[in-house]
């Protein structure tokens, strides 16, 4: 009859057995890893002279010759790894020649076949390799794989491979649409992936702005912040009234990067917009772009109920040379709201402090002296007022 003690003993035997099996498995994996490492070192040593040959004649007209002798599959993979190391570091003819060599060695064919594997990780590895080889033949398969994949980190490996292999704008569009369909907030990453393509993505990004899908619009707007395109004003102005707040913010950010888009009408519109984010962006842009004609607008905006708008407006005034500084002094003198006065005072103090350490340039020195003069003038005046009130 089974007693609890004998049951416990059997259980302990079982646990020991499992532990021993686990250790054997770990040891086997370790030995396998060491053997693979050794094999790799031997192979790299064997083809050391061949790699020197590859690196020495990368810019000759003729194709690079294949490694001498018959290569095993494992040797091909080790050589492929070394070729990828070089591919990642170079552009131009050297990269092209290495890609052609990969095709000549049958590495592209090998990975195209691996894309049909049952194992997900084999497919992902093959997708990565095909991306490295800029294989146009792989695009269809990669798009199919991306379509079938669930949302996890591997879809970005596939997407990057598609971007590298893309033959036309259409391939890139399909890839972006498939990624955007997951409705995850990864627009910046998608734009970064598009940057891996050798194609000009500017027209594609502009075309996203005409889409209904807010995610595609956001991708377009993020992408265009670093790929300026001409004649975008009509599309951007339509998007200022978008129902999606994030889109509105991104559009105004984009418009505020270029002074050509900032007409009087636009500046007034954005400075009085119901979204505080838009008012804040516009206030900041006036200072950054040095638009001193809008000082009166900024003077009004320092009284904005939203702190960020008031803060950016005061800081922008400080950026607008002596005129802006004078406006800040005027605010300190005329404004009744102590919160606004205090904010202006802090910015004035900061500006004077900064000016003290920045006197290398003669223009900067003159500007600082003028600011200091106005400040002292304002200070004397306010002191007189205080004394008069005291008497």
């Amino acid at each position: 009859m089974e007693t609890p003690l004998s049951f416990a003993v059997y259980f302990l035997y079982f646990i020991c057995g499992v532990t021993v099996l686990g250790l054997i498995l770990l040891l086997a994996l370790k030995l396998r890893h060491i053997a693979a490492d050794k094999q790799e070192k031997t192979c790299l040593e064997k083809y050391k002279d061949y790699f020197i040959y590859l690196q020495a004649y990368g810019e000759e007209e003729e194709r690079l010759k294949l490694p001498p002798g018959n290569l095993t599959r494992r040797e091909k993979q080790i050589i492929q790894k070394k070729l990828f190391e070089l591919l990642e570091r170079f552009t131009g003819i050297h990269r092209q020649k290495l890609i052609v060599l990969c095709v000549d060695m049958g590495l592209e064919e090998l990975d195209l076949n691996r894309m049909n594997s049952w194992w997900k990780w084999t497919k992902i590895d093959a997708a990565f390799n095909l991306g490295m080889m800029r294989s146009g033949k792989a695009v269809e398969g990669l798009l199919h794989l991306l379509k079938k994949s669930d949302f996890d980190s591997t879809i970005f490996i596939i997407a990057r491979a598609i971007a590298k292999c893309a033959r036309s704008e259409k391939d890139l569009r399909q890839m972006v649409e498939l990624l955007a369909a997951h409705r995850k907030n990864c627009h910046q990453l998608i734009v970064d992936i598009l940057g891996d393509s050798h194609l000009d993505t500017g027209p594609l990004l502009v075309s996203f702005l005409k889409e209904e899908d807010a995610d595609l619009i956001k991708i377009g707007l993020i992408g265009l912040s670093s790929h300026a395109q001409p004649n975008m004003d009509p599309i951007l102005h339509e998007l200022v009234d978008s129902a999606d707040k994030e889109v509105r913010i991104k559009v105004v950010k984009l418009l505020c990067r270029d002074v050509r888009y900032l007409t009087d009408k636009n500046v007034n519109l954005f400075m009085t917009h119901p979204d505080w984010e838009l008012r804040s962006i516009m206030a900041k842009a006036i200072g950054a772009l040095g638009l001193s004609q809008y000082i009166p607008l900024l003077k009004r905006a320092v009284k904005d109920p939203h702190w960020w708008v008031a803060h950016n407006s005061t800081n922008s005034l400080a950026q607008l040379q002596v005129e802006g500084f004078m406006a800040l002094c005027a605010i300190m003198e005329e404004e009744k709201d102590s919160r606004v006065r205090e904010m202006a005072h802090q910015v004035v103090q900061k500006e004077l402090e900064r000016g003290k350490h920045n006197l290398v340039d003669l223009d900067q020195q003159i500007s600082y002296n003028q600011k200091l003069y106005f400040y002292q003038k304002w200070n004397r005046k306010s002191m007189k007022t205080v004394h008069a009130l005291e008497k």
Partner: protein
Amino acid sequence: MSNLVATLYQLIEASESSHFRCGIILVSCKDLSVEGLETVKRDLAHNSSKEEAHYAFDQNTQVLSIFLKHQKLSDTHFHALLVKDYLQNANLLAGSLLIASFEECTRATGQLLRSMHHAVMELAGVGEIKLFDPQAEDAGDSAASILLVNHDEAVNEFLSIYLERKGYQVIVANDGVDGVQKYQEMTPDLVITDLNLPIMNGYQMIERIKHSDAERGSKIVILTDKRLEEDVKKSFALGASDYITKPFSPVELAARVKRLIS
């Protein structure tokens, strides 16, 4: 004139009228009998049937020469890989290999062939493949020197091979301290450095170099993956002459190096 040089010269003389391009491989071998040489010829011809090759072996110096008609340097180099593999497997390899190529084989003068013959006998190691540059030989010891400071071994290896092929003398350092030390030892014409370096970063190294050798002022090229304008600005402020970001085009780099050195 040694037997080997004479044989090579005869081959060139015999075909002087055609002005064709040719490649020459010289390799130190173990003693080869006449039958042994015939076997080598037969086996190598079997391995690389396309090339028209002539073989000669000098018993005195034990140097095997292979004269390849219509072969560029790249083809000659590749042929040398096959030769090396074969000799190594046949246990006949005794030293290193020296290869050269001539646009017109009449340019391979007796003097150059003699220099090659001497050079192959003086080569250290076994199985190394060295390039013989006839132009450098003519120009003497006036190659411009480049110090390469990079932590990336693949880039170091590639640029050493590539720039040496372009006729520069390249010295490699793996970190900033090593870079400063090698700079002081050799005072190169140009320094190609990364900004991300262990022990002493690129900026610190440039400052040291500029401080230690303000008069000579070697040109400095930055080769880095840092793309921020702040890094570019700082590098130029410290005295860099050029700034290249990775991944880079070796052709473009070589053009910039040439402009700076000239």
